[in-house]
């Protein structure tokens, strides 16, 4: 029998400013997988992630995470969330930023240093975050998610602004974390990264267009080009709607 899904969403609705951002989402994310949440900007990726970590006001439906309702107090030690903006204190150094998160979790400064080492930022640990590049800032933020004993990492566009080499290193890190038993939900708008995921969830205008694998996506659309595959899926969905 399969393990229960790490995330199970049924009928999730989110409204913002009188507009429906997520009209009706059903989604399961397998435990121990790297799942990519892929879609153009404005498709509702961040909102969906915010609902999963329990900081989004939802209008209806249920979101179960690791067997508990999203946002439940025990999940705050089990689920790590890295926002798209990075959520860092610009005036503090990388080590001080991660050190703060470590202390909240009851961990030591050494563990904060180790996390910075994992994302390849040891050399920049003492520089103020405000003076780091976008890619480096994202990695500082990611280091905060590598502390403690998190079981699920929710990462909002962690590879934005990274050069191809760093991007590959990060995806290798995600693989290692998955192999160590973690579940990762990673959003991206770069379709190439779909190929690195065990499973991809394609989101468009707040709706799940497809839940598949990169290979499945290629097979269904008859093209090797993932960008083209996404376009064909959209066209097909639009045709079905008419």
């Amino acid at each position, binding site marked *: 029998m399969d393990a229960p899904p790490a995330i199970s969403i049924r009928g999730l609705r989110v409204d913002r400013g009188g507009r429906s951002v997520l009209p009706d989402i059903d989604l399961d994310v397998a435990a121990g997988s790297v799942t990519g949440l892929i879609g153009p900007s404005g498709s509702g990726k961040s909102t969906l992630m915010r609902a999963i970590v329990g900081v*989004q006001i939802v209008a209806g439906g249920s979101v179960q995470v690791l067997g508990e309702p999203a946002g439940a107090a025990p999940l*705050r030690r089990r689920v790590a969330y890295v926002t798209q903006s990075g959520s860092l204190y610009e005036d503090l150094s990388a080590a001080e930023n991660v050190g*703060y998160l470590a202390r909240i979790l009851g961990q030591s400064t050494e563990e904060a240093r180790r996390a910075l080492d994992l994302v390849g930022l040891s050399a920049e640990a003492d520089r103020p975050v405000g003076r780091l590049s976008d890619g480096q800032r994202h990695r500082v933020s990611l280091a*905060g998610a590598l502390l403690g004993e998190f079981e699920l990492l929710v990462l909002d566009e962690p590879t934005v602004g990274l050069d191809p080499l760093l991007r590959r290193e990060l995806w290798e890190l995600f693989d290692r974390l998955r192999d160590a038993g973690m579940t990762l939900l990673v959003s991206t708008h770069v379709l190439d990264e779909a190929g690195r995921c065990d499973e991809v969830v394609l989101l468009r205008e707040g709706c799940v267009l497809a839940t598949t694998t990169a290979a499945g996506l290629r097979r269904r659309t008859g093209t090797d080009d993932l960008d083209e595959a996404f376009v064909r899926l959209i066209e097909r969905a639009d045709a079905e709607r008419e």
Partner: protein
Amino acid sequence: MSRRATLATARRLLEQLRRDPRTLALIIGVPLVLLGLLKLVFQGREHEFQQIAPPLLGIFPLTVMFLVTSVTMLRERTSGTLERLMTMPMSRGDLVAGYALAFALVAAVQGTVASGFAIVVLGLDVQGSTLALVALAVLNAELGMACGLGLSSLATTEFQAVQFMPAFILPQLLLCGLIVPRDQMAPGLEALSKILPMTYAYEGLADVAAGDGSGAAAAAAVTLGFCALALALGALTLRRRTA
């Protein structure tokens, strides 16, 4: 409540202040400059200076701390750091307590330095207990800190937060008895002045300086009560979930 999260937050805020010496210099320095200016304005009118300086010893730091804490907390909300903290093992009370702890330390330094400056350099003549005067000045700085946290949630931008300062401080300044004695105000205004924290700050400091220490403990208790109320409001108005 998690003492760990509270202490971690207080430490982080102090680290941030240490990285921003200009802000720290303004927090400590602005009340001194204002008090010095007051002394010059009242040159040759020593009696009036002796009357007006003690209450302002509380009101200047109160104003500065109000601004600093409300903007700092607002920044926490708008930069996304609060959102991340709210997904971590930290209650809203932990966060507000961490703020209160860090800024209480700053307020204590600020209030002590300002009173010391007024007494030693400007020759403020305290008829009553000097210790009570310093304690009340510090408590007023703490009150500014607590009110800044309490009202921060009403502002959605830094512009708005800055506007809250005149909206919150100036009416109290008009009603506290500094400009017109309260017993000469219209009854409605006098009643209103009784529910405003600065009224008690003003009277406590003025009384102690004039040698009447009987009301100091009551003024301190009322100020502490307002602090607790404002901090509770700050914690209750923080939102874990947002739209």
